[in-house]
């Protein structure tokens, strides 16, 4: 086995370490062993990245939320900006006592934090970071993501049920209702890019985006974003954790690193969903063809992808700092009475338009037709919503006694109480 530093460094620049290793190992190892070893390296790289970036994500979230709320945020540990705050928190969690509450189902209680991290990590296998830099390009990539991420519902139910705590059980019920409901618009909105790209593989989806899909089918992107917010249980939809009503929901009985695992999984899957949004709707690592440049293309693609992923993540934090929590009936109504019908209609419209455009037309022309049909659908939806709201308001005003007109101008009451 020959090894030269210079060659290795060159391989780092073009990010073809795998080809390089394949070459130098080819002499004294069987092909299947090499592939397994390379898989192992890939897995360790992806997982280590996903786990370590969480340290940064937690710091970023606290800092940004603090700024939005006109506070300073962490500013003691690790210099002026408190960069090492999360490290200190992890160390604190490591020295906490691990308890199993009385009456808890031991297996379910202890298995849940493990499985939730595994479910969050496994999805990273199909996230493309740069041209050729991907765990594995499965031909059913998006389907795989949906399958794995829906396993996290089970872990939440396990945690809530296993803790033998009423708050935890309530939180688990709520979260299962929420996650299961929002899976429907998520799946339906994902159908649209798959329909246009005619593939479920993440790499092919990126290759199909001459125009980023957010500009081709913006409605699908918006539906995906809202349901992704709900699927990761982030703030307008954080009923499953709702600190002020059910303490912390399903993980109220967890302490130390077992609690840390739930926290970790939440951040990993949120960043993954941001990455997935960047991949499907923002064109992933593509940036006006510069990433196809031979020497620095992969590195450039990686940077572009990271910028896109973290921009989406920033919007997640921004929304958390801006919106209040919704009630459970509002949350379910938004899903079943708005997002699901809308995404069903959207799938139909896109399917019909896709068939109406003659095959072999220019990609930009195709994108334009889709964009116009999407905007038209969006406009019709808004119009229906506006009329509904007006009808509700008028019905409310008519029900008021005539002698007190000042109350008629009050805001429309919430529909359900």
């Amino acid at each position, binding site marked *: 086995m020959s090894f030269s530093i210079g060659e290795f460094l060159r391989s780092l620049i073009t990010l073809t370490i795998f080809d390089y290793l394949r070459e130098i190992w080819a002499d004294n190892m069987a092909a299947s062993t090499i592939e397994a070893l390379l*898989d192992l390296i890939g*897995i*360790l790289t992806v*997982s280590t990245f996903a*786990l370590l970036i969480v340290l940064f994500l937690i710091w970023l979230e606290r800092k940004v939320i603090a700024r939005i709320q006109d506070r300073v945020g962490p500013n003691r540990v690790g210099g002026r900006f408190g960069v090492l705050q999360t490290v200190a928190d992890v160390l604190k969690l490591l*020295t906490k*006592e*691990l*308890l*199993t*509450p*009385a009456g808890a189902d031991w297996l379910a209680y202890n298995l849940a934090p*493990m499985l939730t*991290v*595994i479910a969050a*990590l496994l999805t990273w*296998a199909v996230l493309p970071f740069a041209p050729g830099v991907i765990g*594995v390009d*499965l*031909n059913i990539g998006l*389907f795989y993501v949906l399958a794995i991420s829906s396993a996290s519902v089970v872990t939440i139910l396990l945690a809530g*049920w296993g803790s*033998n*705590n*009423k*708050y935890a*059980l309530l939180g688990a*019920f709520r979260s*299962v*209702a929420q996650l*299961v*409901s929002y*899976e*429907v618009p998520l*799946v*339906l909105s994902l*159908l649209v890019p*798959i329909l246009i790209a*005619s593939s*479920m593989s993440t790499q092919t989806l990126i290759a199909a985006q001459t125009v980023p899909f957010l500009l081709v089918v913006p409605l699908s992107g918006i539906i995906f974003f809202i349901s992704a917010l709900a699927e990761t249980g982030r703030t307008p939809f954080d009923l499953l954790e709702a600190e002020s009503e059910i*303490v912390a929901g399903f993980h109220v009985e967890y302490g*130390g*690193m*077992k609690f*840390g*695992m739930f926290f970790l999984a939440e951040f990993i899957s949120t960043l993954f969903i941001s990455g997935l949004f960047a991949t499907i709707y923002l064109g992933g690592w593509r940036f006006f063809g510069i990433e196809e440049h031979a020497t620095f293309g992969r590195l450039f693609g990686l940077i572009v992808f990271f910028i896109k992923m973290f921009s989406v993540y920033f919007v997640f934090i921004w929304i958390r700092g801006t919106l209040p929590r919704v009630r459970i*009936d509002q949350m*379910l*109504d938004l899903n*079943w009475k708005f997002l*699901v*019908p809308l995404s*069903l209609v959207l*799938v*139909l419209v896109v*399917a*019909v338009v896709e*068939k109406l455009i003659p*095959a072999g037309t220019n990609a930009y022309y195709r994108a334009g037709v889709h964009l116009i049909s999407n905007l038209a659908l969006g406009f019709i939806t808004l119009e229906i919503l506006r009329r509904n709201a007006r009808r509700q308001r008028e019905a409310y005003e008519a029900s008021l006694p005539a002698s007190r007109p000042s109350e008629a101008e009050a805001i429309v009451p919430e529909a*359900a109480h």
Partner: protein
Amino acid sequence: MLLDWQFIGIFLAISWIFPLLPVAANWVLGPRKPNPLKQQTYECGVETVGDTWIQFKMQYYVYALIFVVFDVEAIFLFPIAAAYGQLTLFAAFEVVLFVLILAVGLGYAWSKGALEWT
């Protein structure tokens, strides 16, 4: 093809390490002095009354049932969407009909009041 799934297989086996390692470290580093008071169910200081594992709200089942309908639909729609470019106009029309039937199902559940949270 099979090599692709080899990656997932190894990943699934390896990924157990990542949550197990920190929890094990915590188990080694943390104190171990359990007592009955500490292990009580946490309910803001009040002793817990009655059984936790009770029957729950019927409404959850209704949502779960509607979800199952749509999830089964998705399993059918994904391969169709992935091969949509090769479908004939007639097949595409059948897909539209399929989705419409499900939409009618949603409309029925809606009109029956199954989507009202009470």
